[in-house]
């Protein structure tokens, strides 16, 4: 081999090595030197916790928490199922009741009964095997732009049936259940409310000019007339906790409200992943999520309600973000069995 060719081989090998290690401008740091080791938390994109709280937890346990976001709740569960043989981390947060059954039946979770899980809001527990620990919950409901209805002198709608009335033609925007988690939740609410007739209800909504956007942000910020949106539709699918955020600076009452008779209750769970490298760390992390500081932090950071009963709420939530008294619910087993079928039927009814 000539010297030049030898040099080329060396260059080729060099490039491959560089590529593989990306010896580059990015240094890869991890906390594996810490005495307690690293615990990897796999979550959906919306996970958030105050930095000080996490730092305190790391200090008191000697653990280093590394988070890994994996898309929305559905994408999160499906990635965990796919990578079951080589788990992505030690603990998971963000599995919701729409995907809980799949997670449990796929065997990606180890049981763990956290001592903090004894005093939870009623109705949140998934089953009695402790594979899934409820951390928070929230209601997905239609939000109303009150100013719009006042300006147009039309009474605000109150019920599911109202939304299909001619008075509310072309006023509602919801999200696609195939691409958005509130969209799926609200589809489930209609399934619970109308049983077998739920597709008829959607046909009525379709005939009444419902708009379907692909994501919550698109619906809320572009189609909705209230909040920060410029849109033309005063009825939007959002959360019971959204109205407090629409209070204008200096204002004292939100210009929007949630229709509490149209809500589906979403519960979010955490769990220890089967095959975790650091199961003890994962358990400590779950205890931490049920601790008072973390629970009190939840409304501020993730806009949902803490699962531990009697956790104090931010004052504006107490006033403007009431939950539904009797939200719609569908059993996780039924959701797991029919989710795809329902979405297909919905698509056939509303889209095709």
């Amino acid at each position, binding site marked *: *081999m000539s010297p*030049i*060719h030898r040099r*080329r*081989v060396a260059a*080729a090998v060099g*490039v*491959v090595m560089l*590529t*593989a*290690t*990306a010896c*580059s*401008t*990015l240094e*890869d740091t991890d906390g594996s030197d810490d005495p307690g080791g690293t615990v990897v938390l796999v*979550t959906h*994109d919306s*996970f*958030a916790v*105050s*930095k000080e709280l996490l730092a305190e937890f790391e200090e008191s346990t000697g653990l280093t928490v*590394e*988070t*890994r*976001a994996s*898309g929305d709740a*559905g*994408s999160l569960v*499906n*990635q965990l*199922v*796919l*990578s079951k043989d080589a788990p*992505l*981390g030690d603990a998971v947060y963000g599995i919701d009741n729409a995907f809980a059954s799949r997670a449990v039946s796929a065997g990606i979770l180890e049981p763990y009964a956290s001592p903090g899980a004894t005093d939870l809001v009623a109705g949140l527990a998934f089953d009695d095997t402790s594979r899934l620990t409820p951390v928070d919950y929230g209601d997905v409901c239609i939000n109303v732009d009150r100013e719009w209805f006042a300006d147009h002198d039309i009474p605000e709608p109150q019920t599911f049936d109202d939304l299909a009335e001619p008075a509310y033609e072309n006023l509602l925007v919801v999200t696609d259940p*195939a*691409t958005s988690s509130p969209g799926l939740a609200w589809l489930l609410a209609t399934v619970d409310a109308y049983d077998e007739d739920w597709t008829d209800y959607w046909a009525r909504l379709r005939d009444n000019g419902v708009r*379907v*956007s*692909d*994501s*919550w*942000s*698109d619906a*809320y*910020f*572009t189609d909705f007339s209230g909040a*920060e949106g*410029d*849109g*033309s539709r005063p009825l939007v699918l959002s959360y019971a906790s959204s109205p407090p*955020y629409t209070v204008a600076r200096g204002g004292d009452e939100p210009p929007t409200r949630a229709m509490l008779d149209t809500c589906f209750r979403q519960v979010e769970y955490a769990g220890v992943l089967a095959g975790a490298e650091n199961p003890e760390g994962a358990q400590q992390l779950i205890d931490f999520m049920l601790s008072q500081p973390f629970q009190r932090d939840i409304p501020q*950071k993730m*806009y949902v309600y803490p699962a531990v009963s009697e956790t104090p709420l931010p004052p504006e939530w107490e006033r403007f973000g009431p939950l539904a008294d009797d939200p719609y619910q569908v059993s996780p087993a039924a959701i797991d069995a029919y*989710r795809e079928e329902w*979405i297909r039927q919905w698509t056939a009814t*509303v*889209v*095709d």
Partner: protein
Amino acid sequence: MDRNGSRLTAAGYALTAIVPLAFLGLFFAWPVASIIGRGFVADGALDLSAFSEVMARERTWRIIGFTVAQATAGTALAVLLGLPGAYVLYRLRFPGRTAARALVTVPFVLPTVVVGVAFRSLLVEGGAVGSLGADGTFGAVVAALVFFNYAVVVRTVGSMWAHLDPRPEQTARALGASPWRAFREVTLPALTPAIASAASLVFLFCATAFGTVLVLGGLGYRTVETEIWVQTTQFLDLRTAAVLSVVQLGVVAGSLALAAWSRRRREVALRLRAGATDDHLVRRCDLPLVAFTTVVVGGLIVTPLTSLVLRSLRTPEGWGLGNYTNLATTGSRDALEVTVWRAALTSLRIAVDATWIAMTVGVLIAFLLSRRPRQPAARRTIGVLDGLFMLPLGVSAVTVGFGFLITLNRPPVDLRSSIVLVPIAQALVAIPLVIRTLLPVLRAVDQRLRDAAAVLGANPRWVFTAVDLPVLGRSLGLAVGFCFAVSLGEFGATSFLSRPDRPTLPVVIFRLIGQPGTGNLGMALAASVVLAMLTTGVIAVAERLRVHSAGADL
């Protein structure tokens, strides 16, 4: 050349091929084949029944039809509108030309979620052009696709046009041909390879568009790409996803074959000049094209961008720069883990990595593909490879992302949680762009020049340095600009792979837009404007680099 020498040359080519093949094999072919394979294997045996099942659904055909229709319409329009743009921005000299070139590239890097807000706020009932009733229509999707891809045509064709030898056209004119005839019979054939290159890229981008279709298509519009995403991430129906992935590959391979066929007929050695470009001041006969391009750029690009900038200046307290000063914070109620500036820095660092990876692999591939060996078998191999290297554009980010999950998951390559995967995934998208930018130029180099150099005793590397590189100089800058743009704007794969504590700019924009809280939307829009300016700046610098390195003349 003696036998020994040609054997050495062949060995040299093989070695040059190893790096890109190893890279694409490890980070593309293996993960993609594994995830698609899962869809076709049931209980350890091959099971292709999914094919007949999925293809029997009427819905599948509707989805395929829409995918092809939107990609065809988007490509045709982008080329028709982009050709005059390439002429105006690369052949004419006028003040502010560099800025104008950068401006048309901005859409290419905007995250689709932002384009959704910018475009849709114009289109919705009550928006600036809401009266068109275009919201959620096929037309809206196509307009957005052209908005994104206009720059691909303008830049790819323009850079070729800029250093086309003007003398043949001048001769034709001197011999009495009308400007139109001279263009049609002399210039257009010379540009065809670049147009075919650009068109095949745009077609791939349109056929695999994801966010644009979801946001702007509204109800009922699904493409193969969005359906793969839904089936994979939401339903975990890997069988259906696998069938659709194969269908997508089929569509992509078909379009590539078509592009290769049209290129092959035209790709001839052209007289390219590495020196100063032949641009001229605007003449009277150029005015219609200038006017046309001004209208296109104004309506298609400036209007949505202006609406974006205006909205970024609107704060809860009225008009002002509040959203921009907020970029130094983590958002209302700490919506982010890091400040937006910090994310911008991460984006830039990742872009540097993605760029050198993509340039290394891309230049090697372009070099290989530009050779014209005498043996028919070798020629055919090159033809096939040409298409194969484009495939990363034809495979959805979610397929690659889920493929990473099940392949790169054990030592020595457990990279799933490593941030290294981010630039690698972005480079996968950028590599075909690098190839398509460099290849028309490299192929236009007269083979006789290389042969002459070889006869004079230069080995392939020297030939490359002495003959190809000087011509390539200007296009290398262009390619670097593209790489940066792709990396800075990439969202699909990045959102999968980036770590929450080290997000990129598009990832924080997406997060801000997805959170309630006064001011977060404004901040997201301000961050988008920053992203656009950052990209524009980087591309302007790359343009300068290329003028600089083109100093050598043939």
